């Protein structure tokens, strides 16, 4: 096995990991603040892809409308939170889980009604163009998705650390009772969190749309399992953990696929997952939620 091939596998894994990280960030954010496992998270990614493809067919570059799509999906997410999830917040966690599972099924059905069951492709003229470093090829589409994912995650990080709303979100995640006593409107914070979290998933969808294809079950088929593994690996609710976990899982899958073959590519990441659950049951950050 040549060095080039290994390097290519590592770099491609890293790029894939960046997108995984962005999907996982939204999931972990929602869990961190609301203690809700959102099983419909991947459907917001698929929705982002479809909106990007629709915008492209209408003549707009998917990258230019990415912010708009983020906004639209964030508003939709916030709406869904206040109608479907808020009434169940005081009830046992199993109720909330079942609601998000139901939401996932409803969203898949709705997307099939609107866009049909067939695969849709976003054919950018330059999607095959790539940067060549020695024997390693990295396509611009993948590089853009990685860089953008990193920037968005950094921006979200800054938002959480330095804005009033961000601080309120962190306060609500650490101790909702005290936060409420301090005058923070926890219900409003929850709604914003769900909106931002689902918006991040849609953004990831926009970024990967030119490199993949979309069908109604795309998110569930391809992204939900790695996203959950990453969230648990990086400690549930820990934002930085999701970023680092995403990169680790991306590289582990890339190398795993090369060594054990594609059918067993997830073996390495799932083994890593089992080891973490056995020896670090609260994730790499030992339960610390930031």
């Amino acid at each position, binding site marked *: 096995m040549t060095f080039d091939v290994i390097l290519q*596998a590592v770099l491609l894994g890293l790029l894939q990991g960046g997108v995984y990280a962005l999907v996982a960030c939204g999931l972990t954010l929602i869990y961190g603040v609301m203690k809700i496992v959102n099983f419909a998270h991947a459907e917001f990614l698929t929705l982002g892809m479809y909106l990007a493809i629709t915008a492209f067919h209408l003549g707009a570059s998917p990258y230019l409308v990415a912010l708009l799509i983020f906004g639209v999906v964030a508003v939709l997410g916030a709406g869904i939170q206040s109608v479907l999830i808020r009434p169940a917040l005081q009830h046992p966690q199993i109720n909330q889980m079942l609601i998000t599972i139901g939401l996932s099924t409803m969203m898949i059905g709705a997307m099939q009604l609107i866009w049909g*069951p067939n*695969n849709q492709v976003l054919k950018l003229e330059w999607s095959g163009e790539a940067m060549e470093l020695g024997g390693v090829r990295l396509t611009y589409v*993948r590089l853009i998705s990685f860089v953008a994912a990193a920037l968005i995650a950094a921006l979200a990080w800054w938002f959480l650390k330095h804005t009033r709303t961000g601080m309120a979100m962190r306060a609500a995640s650490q101790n909702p009772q005290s936060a409420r006593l301090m005058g923070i409107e926890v219900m409003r914070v929850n709604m914003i969190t769900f909106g931002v979290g689902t918006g991040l998933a849609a953004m990831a969808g926009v970024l990967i749309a030119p490199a993949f294809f979309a069908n109604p079950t795309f998110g569930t088929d391809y992204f939900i399992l790695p996203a959950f593994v990453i969230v648990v690996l990086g400690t549930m609710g820990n934002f930085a953990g999701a970023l680092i976990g995403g990169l680790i899982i991306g590289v582990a899958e890339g190398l795993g*696929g090369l060594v054990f*073959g594609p059918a067993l590519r997830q073996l390495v990441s799932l083994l890593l997952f089992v080891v973490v659950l056995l020896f670090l049951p609260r994730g790499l950050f030992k339960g610390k939620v930031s």
Partner: protein
Amino acid sequence: MTTHDLNPSRRQFVQTLGTAAGVAAFPTLAQTADVKVGFLLPLTGSFAESGQLIKQAVEMAIEEINASGGIKSLKGAKLVGVFGNSTSVDEANTETNRMISRDKVSAIVGAYSSGATISSTVIAERNKIPYLVPNALADEITARGLKFVFKTVPHFSQYAINSGEMVAQLSGGQAKTCALVRENNFFGNVVSREFNKHIGNYGLKLVKDNVFPTNPTTFEDVILSLKRDNPDIVFASGEPSSITLLFKQLAELKYWPKMGWVGLGGGYTNPTTWSNLGKQGDGVIVINDWFPDIKLPGAREVNERFKKRSGGKDMLGNANTTYAGVHILRAAIEKAASADGVAIRDALAGLDLVLGPQSFMYERVKFDNTGFMPRTTLVAAQVTGGQPKVIWPTAYQTTKAVWPVTR
């Protein structure tokens, strides 16, 4: 007029009224019952592109049959399709049971994926309902001694044998090594087994069997290992969604085998695959049992009729074979003159058709004692501008092959 006289006429009046109301309410009583046929197809999920295309072909066949007078030996009984989803083995089994017990179908046609077909045929056999397979390729389907199962599509072993013959002829024996790219499911395992068994007979060494999972997130590792093994030819099977991702990434990583890429049936014959891929698909060779431009009577006409309802998509991806299958089943029901499962089964077993609506792809319809309908050879087509053109064997050729296919 006495009351006594009035009574009978009033009774008569009520009787007449009752009969009229009855006839109006149950018009079917006056006609023969419909013949229900179950169609098991993957209508959602990752095989949905194929399933939906096939459904359109089934509806076209049923409309044609009913418009031409239905089943004449059953006083013009109409054929009615009952559709069920066969996305997974479990689902196919549940739907088969439902079709038999609740919908009371006389026959079943399906189920696209070999895994789902293997299991659901057993249920039909137990219930003595004939099961026609015009779209799943595994050899095992008719190799288990089942009496109610009939398969009109070639066995997969024939794909392996004809692929070897074609490559040996096109390359003049120059192709020495090959690699496989196939899914990790029942059908993929059949592909692997048959290639391992047969491909060596044509001077080809199988250097690597690349297996990818159902719903793969990436093909980068497959492509990197192909780069490393550097085979002359790649033989591949898959579904439209995975093929779309694979070819995008082949372009991204700039890999192409030394002599050519050969797709084996299934998703490689699906027109959606080629419209999704555009230029990226040019030069790929696809091996299958039929193509619209094949030199057989009525092939082009049937395809044009189908394109009118499919939005311009060719009658490929097993839409062709399933369409022909419905017509073959109609011939059997006609011959049986009964909607009973056993009678239709016996009619299918004894069928020998030469001319008919199925002639656009089958020169003769006759099942052997395992329920399989043998064919002499498959055909290969090369994709040019999104259209497959028949290149092999020379008897059916409409365009000369471009060989080797380099990029």
